[in-house]
């Protein structure tokens, strides 16, 4: 079974809050960067949050031309910051957020744990019998979620088609021997954690993560962040633009330690998402945590980034998962 049309797109500003009366300092704030382009910070901040506007303004001005961004914040459920700026971006523009979408997957899992539908210390095989192969019999849901299972990839790698199908990823991982003894170490299951968690959710509930996110989180709370962009919202979608490194950053990217991990980011052919079809077919399209840093080629990393490390320029489906 193929998962239904999931695209990972987020607009962090809640549209329902744009006219929140608590937000008083409405206005437009234009400024000019050193190369003469306008950053055009727009949006609102609540009283007392004016320094955030200044910080956002500064961040846009510091960047090279062509940079645009959106910033939103809530305190105790009330929106206090709703800002955007830079060329081409609007307050209601939608762009891919890559691994930030994993937060939605974990939120669905947390709800199911809270409901008692999933138990963190239950073995995964309880929900997903085929998982009990090749030394994975005792891996718990807690082990899986905390990146301790050692299932970062499969021998031989995934095809781009498989990477766009979470059920296919899960089916292959069910037969895979862990890359380390489960629990002995941890490593970012960058490309597969969504497929693994999603399979457990599907087996336990009969619903996909996307369906549960929509019915229990997005729709009731009116969120403007989708796991699978509805067709009627596509006109708001903006492609992710390729990295625009400075000459020094280019040199850094060329260093072997950086090169593998940044291959997707540095290659315009893979990071310019001119159309979103791959995102539509992969619910968790992105690895990379905030503290993660690269190192020279290792078998573990090759397992985690099979398509990227083998053919970075020819694997857009995989690279959109980065």
């Amino acid at each position, binding site marked *: 079974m193929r998962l239904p049309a999931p695209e990972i797109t987020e*607009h962090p500003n809640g549209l329902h809050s744009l006219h929140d009366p608590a937000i008083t300092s409405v206005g437009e704030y234009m400024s000019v960067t050193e190369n003469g382009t306008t950053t055009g910070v727009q949006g609102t901040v609540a009283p007392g949050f004016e320094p955030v506007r200044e910080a956002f303004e500064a961040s846009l001005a510091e960047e090279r031309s062509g940079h645009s961004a959106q910033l939103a914040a*809530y305190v105790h*459920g009330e929106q206090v910051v709703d800002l955007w700026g830079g060329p081409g971006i609007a307050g209601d523009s939608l762009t891919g957020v890559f691994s*930030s979408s994993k*937060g939605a997957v974990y939120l669905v899992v947390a*709800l199911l*744990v809270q409901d008692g539908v999933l138990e963190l210390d239950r073995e995964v095989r309880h929900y997903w019998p085929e998982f009990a192969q090749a030394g994975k019999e005792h891996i718990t849901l807690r082990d899986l979620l905390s990146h301790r299972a050692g299932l970062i990839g499969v021998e031989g790698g995934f095809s781009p088609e498989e990477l766009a199908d979470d059920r296919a990823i899960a089916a292959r991982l069910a037969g895979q021997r862990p890359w380390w003894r489960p629990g002995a170490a941890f490593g970012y299951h960058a490309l597969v954690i969504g497929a693994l968690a999603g399979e457990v959710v599907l087996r336990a509930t009969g619903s996909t993560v996307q369906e549960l996110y929509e019915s229990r989180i997005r729709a009731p709370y009116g969120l403007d962040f989708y796991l699978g962009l509805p067709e009627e919202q596509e006109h708001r979608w903006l492609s992710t633009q390729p990295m625009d490194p400075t000459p020094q*950053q280019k040199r850094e990217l060329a260093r072997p330690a950086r090169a593998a991990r940044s291959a997707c980011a540095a290659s315009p052919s893979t990071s310019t998402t001119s159309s979103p079809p791959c995102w539509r077919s992969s619910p968790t399209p992105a690895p990379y945590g905030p503290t993660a840093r*690269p190192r020279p080629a*290792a078998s573990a990393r090759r397992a985690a980034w099979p398509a990227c490390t083998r053919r970075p320029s020819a694997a857009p489906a995989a690279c959109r998962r980065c």
Partner: protein
Amino acid sequence: MYAAAISGTGGLPPLLKPETAAEFAQVHSHGINIVFGTPDAFALGFAATWLNYPFLSAGAFGHSGAAGSQAFADPASGLAFGYNRRRFAFPGGAAPETVPLARAVHACATRG
């Protein structure tokens, strides 16, 4: 989404009970990430966001994305944060400017 998770929005209750949020924010893995060979940490799926943004409380949880997005909840201050950029940030992962932005938001949210 993170505001809905810890606080609720629009008159709706929070999605997560405090104890659920606390468990999912608790560090479960810490040390060398065997894939990258570098120091790293994970909570239950979520990143241990407070380790990267030290002004946040230890219960803060969230996730970043490769092009430079970052979103998190900080239950202690009631803060939910979302940042997104269109151009892929160097060198990948949460963008460098996220730290001063999050610091400014947190400072405003927690000031007297």
